[in-house]
């Protein structure tokens, strides 16, 4: 860990060559560091997500949080931006992948990257983390209770999101999954379904499901916060990133 870091708003080039906002946090120590792209949840690019981004820097990683709603609501408060983006149809999967790719390019340009990158996402970001890891060459990915990686909405459901378990064969890196055993989306059955897909595809994964925890257990400002599960989950994240993001000569 380090107590010397810098965090600031930056501009990066995202999908389609678009100039978008991002929040960058980086250690100020000498050396080269693994990079983490933090994918925010549907409620938006908010204070909680920025705190998480700074936490990664404090633990010795280059961390960047792209504002996925930059195009729809530049400069808006997080809840206004999320509302506008929702009204306009949300974040297309292809655009998400392009923005993550742009974030990785930006981290590379800093000159302090060790060339290893991961994505981490929470809730809708968990699904998007899996999506990015199946679409880009990464060294690690973390899915925190992402709904609709698996599971097909009913035929008459208005849910307009595509399950992406069929992309499992393209997963480029080890996957850490952190889930609440009381969650309904994803449910324990959904988690088993994803695990079976990973086994069939011969992928490296590590899953943990926490009893007494449901959806959103990492978020201190939400009723679903579960401090024991969150503390244990963070330890799993540090162990996982320590194995896959830290260069062997570090």
């Amino acid at each position, binding site marked *: 860990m380090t107590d010397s870091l810098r965090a600031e708003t930056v501009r990066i080039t995202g999908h389609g060559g678009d100039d978008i906002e991002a929040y960058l946090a980086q250690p100020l120590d000498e050396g080269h560091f693994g990079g983490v792209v933090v994918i925010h949840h549907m409620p938006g690019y908010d204070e909680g997500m920025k705190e998480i981004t700074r936490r990664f820097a404090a633990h010795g990683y280059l961390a960047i949080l792209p504002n996925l709603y930059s195009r729809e609501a530049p400069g808006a408060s997080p809840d*206004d931006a999320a*509302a506008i983006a*929702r009204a*306009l149809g949300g974040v297309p999967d292809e655009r998400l992948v392009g923005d993550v790719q742009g974030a990785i390019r930006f981290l590379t340009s800093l000159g302090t990257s060790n060339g290893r990158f991961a994505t981490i996402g929470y809730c*809708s970001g968990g699904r998007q983390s899996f999506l990015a890891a199946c679409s880009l060459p990464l060294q690690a990915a973390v899915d925190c209770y992402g*709904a609709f990686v698996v599971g097909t909405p009913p035929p008459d459901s208005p849910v307009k999101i595509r399950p992406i378990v069929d992309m499992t064969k393209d997963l480029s890196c080890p996957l850490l999954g952190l889930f609440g055993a009381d969650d309904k*989306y994803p449910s324990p059955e959904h988690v088993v379904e994803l695990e079976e897909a990973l086994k069939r595809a011969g992928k490296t994964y590590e899953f943990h499901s926490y009893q007494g925890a449901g*959806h959103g257990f990492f978020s201190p400002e939400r*009723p679903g916060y579960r401090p024991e599960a969150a503390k244990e989950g963070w330890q799993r994240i540090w162990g996982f990133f320590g194995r896959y993001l830290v260069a062997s000569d570090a």
Partner: protein
Amino acid sequence: MCTYQTEKLEVSGSGKGPEGWFPLSSATVYFDHPSHYLAEHSLNIDFLNLDDGVQSRVAVELDPVSARGLAQAILETLQTVEQLFG
């Protein structure tokens, strides 16, 4: 979970946002994570004018019981008005 479910409709009227009154063009209704109300999910309504910019938004977040009560109150009010004025 993030529910992704959003009902969107065109509306006509006015709303008062942080910068004053503005004409409404649309509304979205969704059951999803709230930004302020302390619950995992709430019935959220955004009254918007997408042509005006992000400041043109009136937002509410309701627990489901309150949302049903509000919906019922709206319908009863309109029914009463129709009876009075035809």
